[in-house]
């Protein structure tokens, strides 16, 4: 119970800072909106069926704006030596990881909850009867992205070229997440049978579990001084 309280304290700290500044959230949201709009111009929706490209565009918007959020995640901790302070508190290193990871997850999910309706309007897609399935896929995909993302974000913040380094490290690793998320989102939106989706959901769960455990275990090696 004590462990959970510690995690929550870290999550709450991040949420409270974000509510006050709204810095990360606003940039993430506007960026995802921009991606949706720019893609509208690169593909003629009068000639191509929106459903053919919509899942891909949606996940590009999520991953690109997710990178923005992850880049900032440890930058704030680094700037005023907050990470040092956090490491001095009697908290297990893994709790710091879980706290930061959950903070990033919540931030990204909130951004997605607002971006999806915009996406529905811009691409003219009906999702009313499949909100639940879509929510499951978005949650699992975002979780996979954030588990490794938080780990790498703690790494890239210490590297000279930090803003560029994070996507270079993260994108190849999350290829399975992107494929599974795009494929299952597409299957849900075009009313494919459940069997088409379930293997992708399983793949997402496997990725999430493996990298949650690996990141949980290896995080202490990243922030060790």
């Amino acid at each position: 119970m004590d462990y959970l309280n510690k995690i929550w304290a870290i999550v709450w700290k991040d949420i409270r800072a974000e509510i006050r500044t709204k810095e990360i959230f606003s940039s993430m949201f506007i960026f995802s909106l921009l991606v949706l709009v720019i893609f509208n111009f690169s593909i003629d929706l009068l000639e191509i069926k929106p459903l053919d490209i919509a899942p891909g565009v949606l996940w590009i918007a999520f991953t690109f704006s997710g990178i923005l959020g992850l880049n900032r995640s440890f930058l704030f901790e680094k700037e005023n030596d907050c990470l040092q302070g956090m490491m001095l508190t009697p908290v297990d290193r893994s709790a710091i990881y879980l706290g930061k990871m959950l903070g990033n997850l919540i931030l990204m999910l909130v951004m997605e909850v607002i971006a999806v309706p915009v996406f529905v309007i811009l691409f003219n897609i009906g999702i009313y009867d499949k909100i639940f399935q879509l929510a499951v896929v978005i949650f699992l995909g975002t979780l996979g992205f954030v588990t490794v993302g938080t780990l790498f974000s703690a790494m890239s913040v210490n590297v000279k070229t930090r803003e560029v380094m994070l996507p270079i490290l993260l994108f190849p690793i999350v290829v399975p997440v992107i494929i599974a998320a795009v494929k299952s989102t597409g299957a849900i939106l075009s009313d494919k049978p459940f069997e088409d989706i379930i293997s992708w959901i399983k793949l997402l769960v496997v990725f999430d579990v493996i990298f949650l455990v690996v990141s949980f275990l290896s995080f202490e090696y990243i922030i060790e001084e």
Partner: protein
Amino acid sequence: MIFKWFTFIIVNAALIFIFLVAPVERQEGIIQKIMYFHIPSAWVAFFAFFIVFIASILYLWKKEREWDIIAHSSAEVGIIFCSLVLITGPIWAKPIWGVWWTWDARLTLTLVLWLIYVAYLMLRFHAPEGSQRARFSAVLGIVGFLDVPIVHFSVLWWRTIHPKPKVLSMESPGSGMEPVMLITLLTSLLAFTLIFFLLLGQRISLEKRRDELNELKNKLIAES
């Protein structure tokens, strides 16, 4: 020294097998000989990245510089062979499949693998030197290799859910192969593996000498 000569002999034996002994494939013609370079390169690349994985675990466990050097060297040599796979692949594919590149499962996996280890080397290049760099790379070396089977399944399902044209189907290597061709391939595999170990050894001793040099430099600065 003996190892170098042994490698030299095996490499030459492999070349003789490839160009003089092995028959020219009836359908594909001379271009098929690139297989004797393509498949061994792929094997060596995977093997090299496996060594990165093991050395990374051992580094985090023992914290000895030795393992960091091995992981780094193996990743560097591995990326060379992985690049060779990605270069020889299209040269082989163009006359046979009619296209330079197709998003076939195995091709995609190799490309993703290449990207992961290029990122690994970039991280090593940009990270601050010392134990921090070693720890960061070790974590990436572990995460990257664990990702390989997942990427494999994802690209496999991604491509096999839709039926693909027959022209693009890739037969598994070794199936129904002429015995002489198989022997040639195995000799070539041995030759490539030996070259890999030779390069790895060279790269490791180079890194060690660099360490020694840095130590001497620091000593000199401290004295003056």
